[in-house]
């Protein structure tokens, strides 16, 4: 019976995937080949170019106060970038909020540099304004490469963010009646050849959380988690969330805390 079943799937896939030449009998070989392809891309990840730009932006005085971001406190003390990303999101006393890297950088731009960040928040993705934020997030993430994720759930606000993120993850709605968990709440599913991580599990959350920001080869763009999440909202046909808003940080909190103990592998590279 099992065999018939397998042939049935193979036939179905052959029809669907005729142009890609992917049938189930060949899937293992295809996955192996794709792994080879991904390996070839890892050596020489164009994300390095964005890391360098981000570092320059971080260290160059800017804004009405003409100071750099080097005095920014990302949670490990003013000026400490090394390892900071692996401990985000976290609660910050000065803002009274749980913040991820992007929302925290906006705070520093506002308080240290005196920049009006509203236009940056409102700017569309794939614009120079947003690209600068992506580059900074990429630089900060690179300074946590190889560091273990260690996100705190001690503060009540951190706990609250985690629970809100979890609720958002399972919240089903929109014209297609979708939730995050529709795609990211089960094992062994994929779109084309991209495996979809099962986020509620440690392994799935780690696969997702530790590999963003990532360079997307499809369009040659550098995406931070804020962009990744905004695009998930778009695919669910949800309204676009406000950049750095509480619900986006909460989703990151849910993912990061579930990934606790995994090793950051940022910046990543994706198809």
């Amino acid at each position, binding site marked *: 019976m099992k065999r018939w079943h397998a042939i049935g799937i193979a036939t179905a896939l052959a029809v669907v995937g005729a142009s890609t030449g992917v049938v189930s009998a060949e899937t293992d070989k295809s996955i192996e080949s794709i792994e080879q392809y991904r390996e070839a891309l890892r050596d020489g990840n164009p994300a390095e170019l964005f890391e360098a730009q981000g570092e320059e932006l971080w260290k160059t005085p800017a804004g009405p106060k003409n100071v750099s971001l080097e005095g920014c406190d990302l949670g490990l003390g003013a000026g400490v970038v090394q390892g900071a990303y692996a401990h985000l999101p976290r609660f910050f006393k000065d803002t009274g909020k749980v913040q991820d890297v992007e929302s925290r950088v906006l705070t520093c731009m506002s308080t240290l540099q005196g920049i009006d960040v509203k236009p940056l928040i409102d700017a569309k993705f794939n614009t120079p304004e947003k690209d600068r934020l992506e580059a900074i997030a990429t630089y900060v993430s690179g300074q946590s490469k190889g560091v273990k994720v260690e996100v705190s759930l001690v503060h009540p606000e951190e706990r609250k963010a985690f629970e809100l993120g979890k609720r958002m993850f399972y919240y089903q709605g929109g014209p297609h009646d979708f939730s995050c968990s529709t795609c990211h709440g089960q094992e062994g599913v994929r779109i084309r050849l991209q495996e979809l991580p099962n986020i509620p599990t440690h392994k799935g959350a780690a696969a997702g959380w530790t590999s963003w920001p990532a360079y997307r080869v499809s369009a*040659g763009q550098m995406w931070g988690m804020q962009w990744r999440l905004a695009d998930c909202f778009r695919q669910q046909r949800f309204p676009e969330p406000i950049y750095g808003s509480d619900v986006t940080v909460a989703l990151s909190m849910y993912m990061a805390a579930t990934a606790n103990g995994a090793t950051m592998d940022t910046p990543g590279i994706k198809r």
Partner: protein
Amino acid sequence: MGNPMKIRAASKDGITEVKVLMSHEMETGFRKDASGAPIPAWFISEVTAKLGDKVVMEAQWGPSVSKNPFLAFKIKGGKAGDKVTITWVDSKGDTRTDTATVT
């Protein structure tokens, strides 16, 4: 001027392996923008590699080299402390030169 390249050059057993990432759109000329207007081609067309003062490679590229190009090649000789210099020129005549020290 373009953004800086990332160049890594490492010498091992008498061979210097060079890896370069360049920041460039590499626009094909086949795409259209949001209003339907064609986006003109714009790409790195020439790349030169030097070890010290000596040209070791000259490349000609078309627009089907990927965006943010990656290039890896191997030079006979070269040792730690030597300089590897890469220059690109694009189809608009813009150019960029960066140098790395062999490790």
